[in-house]
């Protein structure tokens, strides 16, 4: 194949020249994909904790980067991999303190180039979800989570009848893509945005019958 390289390079130059002159034809969809990646990589620089590796997409990010959803087979693969990545809580302890969970849900800070390295992240939950009834400033990108546990019949989160929804909720918080390949929600556990203890607190906010969410 090596002997073909100069010819290929010459073709690329000719195509580029035609494009610059405005008399070429529209590149193929695949060529545009490549051009977009080149433009993106060439347009950003690292700043503070926001380093260039953040532009390196994993399989799921790449598959969910267009208006078209990935094929069912790809989506299934992403979900299976995501579910397999979920780290289940030590000692089967799923719930923490809902008061701490509410603080995390309110806190939208962290991970930007203006945040200091090692600074604690919030969960940004209210940015996209209604949660506690008292907070009127909530977003609507995600579904309302008001009465989350109550609506799902969680009277005692430790009981076997609650196990399925408790585990699902942990999995959703740890890696949202386990149940929807292109979910808009961040992967809080998988991406290291929240610690296991913090996820327990958010779990309590949603599932503890004493949490204001379930009143």
């Amino acid at each position, binding site marked *: 194949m090596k002997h073909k390289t100069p010819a290929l390079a010459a073709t690329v130059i000719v195509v580029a020249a035609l*494009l*610059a002159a*405005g*008399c*070429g*034809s*529209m*590149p193929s969809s695949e060529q*545009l*994909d490549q*051009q*977009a990646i080149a*433009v*993106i990589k*060439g*347009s*950003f*620089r*690292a*700043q503070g904790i*926001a*380093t*260039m590796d*953040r*532009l*390196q*997409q994993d399989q*799921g*990010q*790449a598959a*969910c*980067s*267009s*208006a078209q959803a990935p094929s069912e087979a790809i989506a299934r693969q992403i979900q299976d991999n995501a579910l397999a990545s979920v780290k289940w809580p030590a000692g089967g302890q799923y719930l923490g303190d809902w008061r701490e969970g509410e603080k995390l849900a309110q806190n939208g800070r962290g*991970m*930007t*180039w*203006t945040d200091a390295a090692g600074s604690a992240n919030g969960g940004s939950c*209210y*940015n*996209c979800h209604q949660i506690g009834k008292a907070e*009127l*400033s*909530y*977003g*609507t*990108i995600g579904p309302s989570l008001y009465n989350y546990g109550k609506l799902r019949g969680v009277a005692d989160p430790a009981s076997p009848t609650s196990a399925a929804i408790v585990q699902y909720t942990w999995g959703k918080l740890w890696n949202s893509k386990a149940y929807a390949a292109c979910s*808009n929600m*961040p*992967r809080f556990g998988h*991406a*290291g*945005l929240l610690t296991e203890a913090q996820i327990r607190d958010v779990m309590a906010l949603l599932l503890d019958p004493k949490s204001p969410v379930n009143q």
Partner: protein
Amino acid sequence: MSAWRREGLRVALALALAGVSATAAAQGKSAADGIAEYRKMLEDGNPADLFEAKGESLWTTKRGPKNASLEACDLGKGPGVVKGAFVELPRWFADTQRVQDLESRLLTCMETLQGLKAAEIAATPFGRGEQANMEALAAYVSAASRGQRMNLPQAHLQEKVMYEVGKRAFYFRGGPMDFACATCHGEPGKRVRLQDLPDLTKNPGDGIGFAAWPAYRVSSGELWSMQRRLNDCYRQQRFPYPGYASDVTIALGVYMGVNAKGAESIAPAIKR
């Protein structure tokens, strides 16, 4: 205007906005209704006027190593034509062989006509030095098209290519939170907290989204151009730092601007 008076104006505006929001909430109106009402109240008192006046003065003042004004600058409709230029940007420019948005084109004119260094200006933090002048110039040029409808050209091949690149950039997911522009701006009727989010995959309506920037931001007392708006979007997306007037920002401008075809430009607008 003194710093104190500026501060006083900011506080007054913030209070006016809070008042309108409270009224809107009490009457069961949406945040959008409240903001529309607020904009109407301030139609004759948008502080963007001050930036616009500064920009006009900068446009006609001889500056830089070449001691020249920007009056011969070609923003796409011929040298010196400012009116109507904004609603057709970004577009292809034969002299630079590039698709350029308002800010990148201003940089070209500042370099070629005035002898200022475009790369140095692009590397200057927002609000400082020549970047403060860029904001004023963006306010001036956009104001000259206020009330006109977005009408970006798509005749040149590179304009079409940049639309397609911009579309791909819009949907590009990355960073620790898996966010793309589309995460927040890909569907109609969504909010982050109480902030309404325009659906930028289509025309979101008159004076909304691409047709509302540059804008004066009451919360910070600053005039933000589209470049700064995009910069802060990417910050909140947890992406690395987009270069000022970089190709990804220009491509996104083409994508949003072409999608907004027919939307009335209200720039420079006023925002919370």
